[in-house]
């Protein structure tokens, strides 16, 4: 596995330096690993802070900017960040209106964000937290760490970020985030394993000609392994897996997401099949986003996230956003 890196130890710091150079509109603290919008704190507005292990770019750093995150805290590759990062981020972005922590449901992320919330509150920042756990591949049981946080994170950050941008108070921003968490579900498929720099090779074995149905964004095991399927069959499986859990009585926004190494050409073709299934199942689609947004390093594969939206959420979706990876309306 050839990687475009220097040494595994500096991968995250190198990326942050490269991000700083490419995005003067961001203030990137390479040493302390915090990416903050340059105009923070924005007076009178609630701030959003997220973070997690690196390797899922553009999540989260690519979503920092007007109408989405105020700051992001990248951890080591596939390792959740430490509380110091979130505390520092919260202090940098809090305008006095409070901070919402957007946390993906992994033990490490939960524990570190919990600690950070306590510490930040000690420093006088009002903190609310929302837990994203949208991956229907995992049965949500008290006997496991629970459903994983994946593609719905983009929706939480966009929609709650839009509410904050409009000046909604912390309680309302948190309520929007919770509504989105309840309305969005995802299912992912791996056509190849991904390789972390530290390991220097694939983190799991996927025999040639097989795919993993229900894979997690760190290559966690899914529901089953099968012989390779067509785009059509994968769309049927993935969309039905989501709809089994989420029975929308309103239109959905569809995120057809690439895992990192699947060509955009294939991803658009897959979107055609996703739209077909949704039409067949009678689910109206209000908006569609196709691209590599929540990735797993060099994994080939895709995921489908559906987010049920009422008129208010749809309005928040269309609201201006100005980040490195998602930008419209401004």
């Amino acid at each position, binding site marked *: 596995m050839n990687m475009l890196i220097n040494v595994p130890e500096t991968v995250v710091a190198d990326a942050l330096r490269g991000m700083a150079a490419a995005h003067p509109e961001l203030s990137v603290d390479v040493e302390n690993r915090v990416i903050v919008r340059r105009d923070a704190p924005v007076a009178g507005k609630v701030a959003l802070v997220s973070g997690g*292990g690196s390797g899922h770019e553009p999540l989260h750093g690519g979503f920092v900017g007007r109408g989405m995150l105020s700051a992001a805290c990248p*951890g*080591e*590759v*596939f*390792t*959740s*960040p*430490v*509380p*110091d990062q979130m505390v520092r981020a919260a202090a940098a972005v809090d305008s006095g209106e409070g901070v919402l922590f957007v946390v993906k449901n*992994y*033990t*490490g992320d939960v*524990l*570190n964000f*919990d*600690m950070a919330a306590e510490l930040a509150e000690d420093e006088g920042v009002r903190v609310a937290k929302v837990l994203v756990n949208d991956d229907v591949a*995992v049965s949500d049981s008290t*006997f*496991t*760490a629970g459903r*994983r946080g994946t593609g719905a994170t983009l929706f939480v950050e966009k929609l709650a970020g839009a509410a904050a941008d409009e000046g909604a108070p912390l309680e309302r921003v948190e309520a929007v985030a919770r509504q989105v968490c309840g309305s969005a579900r995802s299912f992912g498929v791996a056509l190849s394993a991904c390789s*972390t720099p*530290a*390991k220097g090779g694939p*983190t799991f074995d996927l025999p040639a000609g097989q795919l993993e149905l229900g894979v*997690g964004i*760190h*290559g*966690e*095991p899914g529901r089953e392994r099968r012989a390779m399927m067509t785009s059509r069959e994968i769309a049927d499986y993935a969309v039905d897996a989501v709809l089994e859990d989420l029975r929308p009585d309103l239109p959905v926004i569809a995120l057809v997401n690439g895992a990192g190494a699947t060509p955009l050409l294939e991803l658009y073709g897959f979107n055609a099949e996703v739209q077909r299934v949704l039409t067949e199942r009678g689910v109206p689609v209000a908006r569609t986003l196709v691209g590599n947004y929540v990735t797993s390093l060099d994994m080939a594969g895709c995921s489908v996230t559906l987010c049920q939206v009422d008129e208010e959420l749809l309005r928040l979706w269309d609201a201006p956003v100005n980040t490195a990876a998602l930008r419209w309306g401004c």
Partner: protein
Amino acid sequence: MLDAEFFRRWMAGAAAAVDREADRLTELDSAIGDADHGSNLRRGFAAVQDTLEKEAPQTPGAVLTLAGRQLISTVGGASGPLYGTLLRRTGKALGDSPSVDREQLAAALKAGTEAVSRLGGAAAGDKTMLDALLPAADALGESFDAAARAADAGALATVPLLARKGRASYLGERSIGHQDPGATSSALLFSALAEAAE
């Protein structure tokens, strides 16, 4: 009696053991996790060494509290807050006396492991570090060697278990047959303690 110097020796021994065994820990984590436990703890305990040398805390409690804080600040993942909490809470329970005895340490470690259990929501038998920590803290009432042996046995006993917490829980039945990386690093911690006491 165990003074600050003893606790610094313990931490130095733990850092050396983690560094030596990092690849094995990562290998174990690769089987049922995400292949970072070794590099996580190596990064963390190296930072602990640095900070202990720089700040030279003068009581057992201060050594462990500082070490715990440093783990929290540098490890990340699940094990960072958990090990950090273990040492911090143990340190706090030791208070600020300049030296403590083995029984006091055993009691403090029980408080520490309880805090770990509360924080992570895991209990004995969930195939986590607690399966080594809990029996070790118990056995420390007897002797340092007994604690080290109990931690080793606890780590080994995670092999047939089904993981119910942490990343390994996604594997369900497939987690059976693998030794838990966190329980394995906990055993290293108690071996280092026994060595420091020799």
